[in-house]
């Protein structure tokens, strides 16, 4: 399992591995928003949590179609399916590798980009906490979407359509935590719901992903 994780990380950091794609997209979105909205710092401060969360979500979505498709194309997925590793742990590791290369950099970049959007000071810690809790769910749900569309050529469009509605609860509660945090309100309720969504996705979805992958490998 560790070998698979290390390989995926190594592949992501080598040339053409796609590390930084999500981060660059996140950067572009948050840098561009002040230009399009205009120099109204109060308005920016109000929309900052939502924009940051939406940017992070779209950045995650952008990198999903490589998640399993590359292993499918070069035949590694067939070979992994006949290896001693159960497919459930294979997809979990793949999701973890995706989170480390996409979700974690977003979490770390978010406070810096929050400055660009004039995010209120008390909002920073809750923005980071909400992203830290929410991005694992994005990776795990995304892996499920990638498993559903793995056999399709150019399945990215279909995958986005399938994954988008599944991302909505995470987005709602994640940006609600960040918004309440920024406005100095109590964050407990959306925070618990967000953590619940992440915990449930991590616990249940790998089984669903492995099941659809088995069907797609036939």
């Amino acid at each position: 399992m560790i070998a698979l994780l290390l390989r995926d990380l190594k592949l992501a950091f080598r040339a053409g591995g796609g590390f930084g794609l999500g981060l660059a997209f996140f950067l572009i979105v948050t840098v561009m928003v002040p230009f399009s909205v205009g120099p109204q710092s109060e308005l920016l401060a109000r929309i900052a949590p939502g924009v940051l969360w939406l940017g992070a979500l779209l950045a995650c979505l952008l990198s999903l179609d490589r998640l399993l498709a590359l292993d499918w194309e070069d035949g590694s997925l067939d070979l992994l399916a006949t290896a001693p590793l159960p497919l459930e742990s294979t997809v979990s590791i793949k999701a973890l590798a995706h989170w480390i290369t996409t979700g974690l950099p977003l979490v770390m970049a978010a406070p810096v980009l929050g400055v660009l959007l004039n995010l209120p000071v008390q909002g920073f810690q809750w923005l980071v906490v909400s992203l830290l809790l929410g991005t694992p769910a994005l990776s795990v749900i995304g892996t499920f979407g990638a498993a559903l569309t793995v056999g399709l050529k150019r399945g990215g469009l279909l995958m986005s359509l399938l994954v988008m509605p599944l991302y909505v609860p995470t987005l709602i509660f994640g940006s609600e935590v960040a918004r309440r945090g920024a406005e100095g309100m109590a964050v407990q309720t959306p925070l618990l719901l967000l953590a619940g969504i992440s915990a449930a996705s991590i616990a249940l979805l790998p089984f669903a992903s492995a099941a659809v992958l088995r069907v797609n490998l036939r």
Partner: protein
Amino acid sequence: MTLTVTDLSVARGGIPVLEGLSFALAPGRALILRGPNGIGKTTLLRTVAGLQPPLTGQVEGAEDQIAYAAHSDGLKPTLTVAENLIFWASVFGRNGIEQALDGFDLQALRDRQAGALSAGQKRRLGLSRMLVTGRPVWIMDEPTVSLDKTSVAMFADAVRAHLGQGGSALIATHIDLGLEADVLEVGPYKAKPPEIDDFDGGFL
């Protein structure tokens, strides 16, 4: 561990291609599958490897015993030859890739990126993966594609050594590997088209 296949029927894309296949593969033996293109050799091998369920019949003794080599080698172009092999070795819970590198004459290429290899060299690397798995039953689909004569001989030696250690091999190939092996012609097991027995059937 004998691999036993009983009354197996397999389907590709929902259409039955082979039916009524039975064979047994004892340790130390090799079985060569022959048959024209499209007859269902790959489908049969994928079924035996457990990648797809059979329509009817049973495959026994394959669970956690097989190493499968498909048309594509499952190599990562940005990893080196050694890194690719080490990865597969550790997935199968083993270490030591030297024997595999020696067996397929890959020592000189060990630090080359797999993406920079020729087709034949990639194939050799794909086949050497079988050596690091440590699994007793090798299931191989057209293993000699893009190999030259020397490499085919190298491959045949590797299979012979594997059989000598009590392993077994199920190989779909068109060329003569010079192995002492049983040959199974799959042509006669071609599935008959399903009977059209109702009104709708004529339109399917």
